[in-house]
């Protein structure tokens, strides 16, 4: 230990520093250190708070129980004694009123004679002189306050000092004391108190044990979610929260978390898909354009051919930027970012516009573009994207339909929503190709000779998903050769 380090009380400074550094060094570099697995600090633990709350509730319940028990036992005995004394005192004062001092003395003697339990206490004195007339007490208890008729004190009864509950009665010329020996009741109260103390100990123990259990159960139920989120923060996106299968609140939370993780996974895949596409499929046209320009620079004889190549280069670049634009639109639609542009619209208008835009093109290629549309198909959506999707389908259909063929655009409201169909007289798609259609940049072998980026159907699919719908591909006329292709977009109602 260096002599210069200021010694801190408790733990020397260098050691503390060393420990802190040690912890920091061993922390994983990738994730934030606060995500390290393990119980949270005690005071911040929600588990502890629940546990303390539980213990407090448990203790309150126990206190209430004891209070009721006390009132029903010891309290009841006290009330009983008081009632007996009051009745006795009233009876004695009645007797005095009827039969005077003699009657009262007789009554007291009678009562003492039948008191087998030796509990009753009486004292009858002359008020002025303090002379004892009757009763089983030698003298008036000393040091008693003169306030109130009821009091409790120690008296000498049958030669023993006992606790007694007493009632004072003032009659003309007389002082009367009526009471009961409380020794047994005191004993009972002591036993009860003892019981309550033991029970309280048990209550504290159970409360603590319950609190400990609650805290651990909570931690155990939280641990899968915690492990998963920590794993995801650490870069393992495939991790999912394990469900207990009980379907309780924790399972519901875990399910929500898993759905969220799936969605994030899809988005990540989309982003990865776009970057893959950029890496693999944009490089090719860029390389082609670059090669052409470089070649022209090196070998062009005259200005005319150089100009032609540069123009071609610009057209190539425009093509690349259109692919890029399409990719961004797909990504935007897939991320759901364009829901902000949703507005109520009539899909029939959009479809009619699309048909109108492409009808001239179909006609120029010797095809018929037929439509079968209802009067109105109200929905909420992004009209530019919906038009783009239908335009992509029509463009495809027209591209692959031979001269003299027909393309049919139809739409109908079904029981579950809206169905938009584009059917063509083209070569159709094999089952295998159908499975891949809609993947970015996928182009069926037959289609490679026609111009196109292979992004059209991906966008259609992304737009359908954005509107909560789906796309399916089937043969237009299954028995015919070639069967043609029918693309169906199903959108949910509203």
């Amino acid at each position, binding site marked *: 230990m260096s002599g210069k380090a200021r010694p801190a009380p408790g733990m020397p400074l260098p050691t503390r520093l060393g420990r802190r550094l040690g912890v920091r060094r061993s922390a994983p570099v990738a994730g934030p250190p606060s995500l390290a697995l393990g119980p949270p600090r005690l005071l911040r633990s929600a588990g502890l708070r629940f546990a303390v709350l539980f213990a407090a509730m448990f203790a309150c319940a126990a206190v209430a129980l004891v209070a009721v028990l006390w009132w029903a036992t010891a309290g009841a005995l006290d009330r009983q004694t008081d009632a007996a004394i009051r009745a006795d005192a009233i009876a004695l004062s009645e007797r005095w009123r009827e039969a005077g001092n003699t009657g009262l003395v007789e009554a007291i003697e009678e009562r003492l004679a039948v008191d087998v339990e030796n509990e009753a206490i009486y004292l009858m004195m002359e008020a002025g002189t303090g002379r004892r007339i009757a009763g089983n007490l030698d003298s008036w208890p000393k040091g008693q306050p003169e306030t109130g008729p009821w009091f409790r004190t120690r008296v000498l009864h049958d030669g023993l000092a006992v606790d007694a509950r007493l009632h004072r009665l003032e009659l003309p010329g007389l002082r009367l004391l009526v009471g009961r020996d409380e020794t047994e009741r005191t004993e009972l109260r002591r036993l009860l108190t003892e019981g309550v103390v033991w029970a309280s100990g048990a209550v504290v123990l159970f409360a603590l044990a319950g609190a400990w259990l609650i805290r651990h159960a909570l931690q155990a139920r939280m641990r899968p979610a915690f492990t998963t989120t920590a794993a995801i923060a650490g870069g393992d996106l495939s991790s999912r929260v394990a469900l207990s299968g009980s379907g309780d609140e924790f399972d519901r939370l875990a399910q929500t978390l898993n759905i969220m993780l799936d969605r994030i996974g899809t988005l990540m895949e989309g982003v990865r898909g776009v970057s893959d596409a950029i890496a693999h499929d944009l490089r090719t046209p860029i390389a082609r354009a670059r090669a052409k320009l470089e070649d022209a620079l090196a070998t062009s004889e005259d200005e005319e051919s150089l100009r032609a190549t540069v123009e071609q280069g610009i057209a190539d670049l425009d093509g690349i930027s259109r692919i890029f634009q399409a990719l*961004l639109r797909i990504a935007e639609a897939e991320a759901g970012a*364009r829901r902000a*542009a949703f507005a109520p619209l009539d899909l029939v208008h959009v479809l009619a516009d699309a048909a*109108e*835009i492409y009808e*001239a*093109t179909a006609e120029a290629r010797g095809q018929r573009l037929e439509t079968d549309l209802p009067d109105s198909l109200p929905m909420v959506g*992004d009209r530019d994207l919906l038009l783009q999707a239908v*335009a992509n389908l029509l463009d495809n259909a027209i591209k692959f339909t031979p001269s003299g063929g027909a393309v049919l655009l139809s739409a109908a409201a079904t029981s579950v929503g809206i169905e938009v169909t584009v059917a063509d007289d083209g070569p159709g798609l094999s089952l295998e190709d159908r499975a891949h259609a809609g993947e970015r940049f996928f182009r069926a072998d037959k289609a490679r000779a026609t111009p196109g980026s292979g992004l*059209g159907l991906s966008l259609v699919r992304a737009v359908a998903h954005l509107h909560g719908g789906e796309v399916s591909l089937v043969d237009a006329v299954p028995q015919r050769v070639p069967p043609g292709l029918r693309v169906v977009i199903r959108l949910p109602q509203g």
Partner: protein
Amino acid sequence: MRILLVEDDAEVARFVRKGLQEAGHTVEHATNGRDGLFLAASEQFDMLVLDRMLPGGVDGVRLVETLRSQGNRTPVLFLSALSAVDEKVKGLKAGGDDYLTKPFAFAELLARVEALGRRPSVDAPATKLRVADLELDLLSRTVTRAAKRIDVQPREFRLLEHLMRHAGQVVTRTMLLEKVWDYHFDPQTNVIDVHVSRLRQKLDKGFDKPLIHTVRNAGYMIRAEP
């Protein structure tokens, strides 16, 4: 026209400036939003061409909002690398008149600048548009050439109307899609060309002087002289 260009990228600015000057316009250039706002507020311009994202704390949208709040109604064209539709909507809501996404063809920019800068006068709404012997009646929705009635469909009528309102100016295919069909989308193939050539056939059939001209690498123009 006297045009203010606010663009921070030197190469794009040089290219746009040179092209606009060659087309006969005077161009002032600012490289950031603060200078651009100062120039736009203190001098008289016929047209502003603004980059959407600008350095210096004042971006294109802020610049236009500030100008508009001062009552300055100079037409504004946004140039932007942000292509998302809501970005476009944001730009137009702030007071922009048109929006062009980078990368763009210069011909497209020039056509839009000229369309914006020479908007038809509002004080005397024309009921008839004329180019040479072609006449379009906006009230009776009829088209005649040399007093001969030509039958056009409603969309063709709107297409012709747009071309005639910008007679002598280049109108690009994207502008036609946006203004005549009112959609922002990429038609992939030249669907517009087919519509224009169909219209052209109807107009020029039986006449030796064509009116709708194709401008190479740019778009279409309607004018009397070839």
